[in-house]
C-alpha cells in the first residue's frame, strides 16, 4: 500500500499539488484521473522520487520515502516498476537487453537465468520472437508491452503506469488494460495508473482519485463515481462521453 499525506509541490510559486492525501491499495488498480495540467504526472513523479515534494509524506508500507536518503530510496525504487507514457525503452539496447537490464544490474542471475526470465516476461505480455529487435522496430503497442515486461522483470511490489493507453488504437488499449489488470491481480501488486481514458477506468479501475487543479476533488470506488455528487468529476466524465 502507498499513502500520501498532505503533499504539496510548487514550481516558481505556482502551486501544482495542493495538500493531497490519498491511499493506493495492494492488489488493486488505483486510477488517478484529471484534466491535462491537473497535476497527475507531477504527483506520480513525486511518488517515485523523480521530483521532491515541498511538504508532506509518502509511505511505501511503513517506509517514509520522503525523509529517506538517496541510497535508502534506491532500496525502495528497486521494488518499483514503471511504464512511462513514451515507454522510455533504452533505444540503444535490444528488447532482450532492455528487459534484462534490471536483472543484470541488481541480481546475481546467470546469463541463462536472465534469458529465461526475459522470455518469461515477454511471454507474459504476449510477445514472442522480438528478443533481438530494437525499440525503433516496434509498434506503439509492442513498445508498451515491452515496457510492461521490463517493469515486471524484478517482480516489483509497486507498478506505476503513466497514460498507458496514450497513442494506442482502441483494441491495443484494451489489451494493455487487460494485461495491467491481470498482472496487478496475479502478483498482488499496488498499481497506480494515470489516465484520461474513462473507458479504461470503468473496465479495470478499483480505486479512483480525481484531481482538479492540483487538489484532490474526490476519492472512492468505481461503483460510487456516478453518485459522487462532485459536479466537476461528473462534467469530466460527461466530456469523456460516459
Amino acid at each position, binding site marked *: 500500500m502507498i499513502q500520501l499525506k498532505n503533499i504539496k509541490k510548487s514550481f516558481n510559486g505556482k502551486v501544482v499539488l495542493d495538500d493531497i492525501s490519498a491511499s493506493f491499495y495492494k492488489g488493486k488498480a488505483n486510477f488517478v484521473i484529471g484534466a491535462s495540467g491537473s497535476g497527475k504526472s507531477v504527483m506520480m513523479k513525486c511518488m517515485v522520487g523523480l521530483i521532491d515534494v515541498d511538504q508532506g509524506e509518502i509511505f511505501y508500507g511503513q517506509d517514509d520515502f520522503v525523509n529517506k536518503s538517496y541510497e535508502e530510496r534506491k532500496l525502495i*525504487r528497486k521494488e518499483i516498476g514503471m511504464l*512511462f507514457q*513514451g515507454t522510455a525503452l533504452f533505444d540503444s539496447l535490444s528488447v532482450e537487453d532492455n528487459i534484462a537490464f534490471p536483472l543484470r*544490474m541488481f541480481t546475481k542471475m546467470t546469463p541463462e537465468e536472465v534469458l529465461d526470465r526475459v522470455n518469461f516476461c515477454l511471454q507474459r505480455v504476449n510477445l514472442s520472437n522480438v528478443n533481438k529487435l530494437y525499440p525503433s522496430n516496434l509498434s506503439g503497442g509492442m513498445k508498451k508491452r515491452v515496457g510492461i515486461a521490463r517493469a515486471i522483470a524484478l517482480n516489483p511490489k509497486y507498478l506505476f503506469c503513466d497514460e498507458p493507453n496514450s497513442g494506442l488504437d482502441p483494441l491495443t488499449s484494451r489489451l494493455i488494460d487487460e494485461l495491467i489488470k491481470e498482472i496487478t491481480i496475479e502478483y498482488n501488486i499496488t498499481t497506480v495508473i494515470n489516465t484520461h481514458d474513462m473507458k479504461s477506468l470503468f473496465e479495470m479501475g478499483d480505486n479512483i482519485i480525481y484531481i482538479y487543479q492540483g487538489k484532490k476533488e474526490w476519492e472512492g470506488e468505481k461503483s460510487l463515481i456516478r453518485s459522487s455528487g462532485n459536479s466537476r468529476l461528473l462534467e469530466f466524465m460527461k466530456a469523456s462521453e460516459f
Partner: protein
Amino acid sequence: MKFFEHFGNYTMFLLGLFKRPERFKVFSKQTLHEMSSIGVGSFGIVSLISVFTGAVSTIQIGVQLVSGLVPDYMLGTFVRDSNIYEFSPTITCLVLAGKVGSSIASEMGTMKVTEQIDALEIMGINSANYLVLPKILAGVLTIPLLVVYAMVLSIIGGAISGVMGDIISVDEYVRGLRTDFVPFSVWFALIKATTFAFLITSISAYHGYRTEGGALEVGRSSTMAVVYSAVAVIIFDYILSDILLGA
C-alpha cells in the same frame, strides 16, 4: 551570475557522478564501448586534421625561414615543437569538442527528454554515474592516445609537404626533428590532452543531462556543449601553458 549558477551546478553534477559503480562488470563494458566510440570513431577526422596541420605548419614556417640566418634543418625542429606543444593537443581537442562533445550532449539530451534517464533513476540506478562516468573515463583514456597519434601524423604530414613543396629534404627535416628534443614536451601535451578530455566529456554530459523539453532543446544543448567545451579548452590551454611552461 549565470556563469556562477552553471559552475555551481556543474560542480554538483561532478560530485554526484563520482560514486562506486553499481556493477563493475557493466561499468567496464560501458567504458570499453565508449572508448571504441570516442577513439575508433574519431580516427578518421583526427588523421585528416593532423596530416594537414603538419603540412600547413611546414609551409608557413618554411616561408618565414628565408633569411638564411636560421639553418634549414631547424624547420623540422619548429614543426615538431609547434605540433607537439600546441597544434596536436589543442586542435585535435577542439575538433573532438565538436565531434565527441555534440555526440555526448545529444545522446544524453535525447535520453533525458524521452525519459530514459528517469527510467534508470526509478530502477534505483545513479544515472549520472552509470551514463556519464564511463564517457569521462573513456575520454580521459582515449583522447591522449589520439593526441599522440596526431603528433606522429602531423610530423609525417610536415615531412610530406616539405618534400613535395621542395622546401626541405627528408634528411634535413629528420635532423631538425632530432635537434634539442625535450621529452617534457610530450608530457606537457599529454597533460593538456587529459585535461581537455575531462573538460570536453564532462561539460558535454552536463549540458546534455540538463536538457528539458524536446528536439529543439536537444539541439540547443548540443550547441552549448560544443561552445562551452571549446571555450574551456582554450582557457585551460592558456592556464596549463602558464603553469607548466611559464617562468
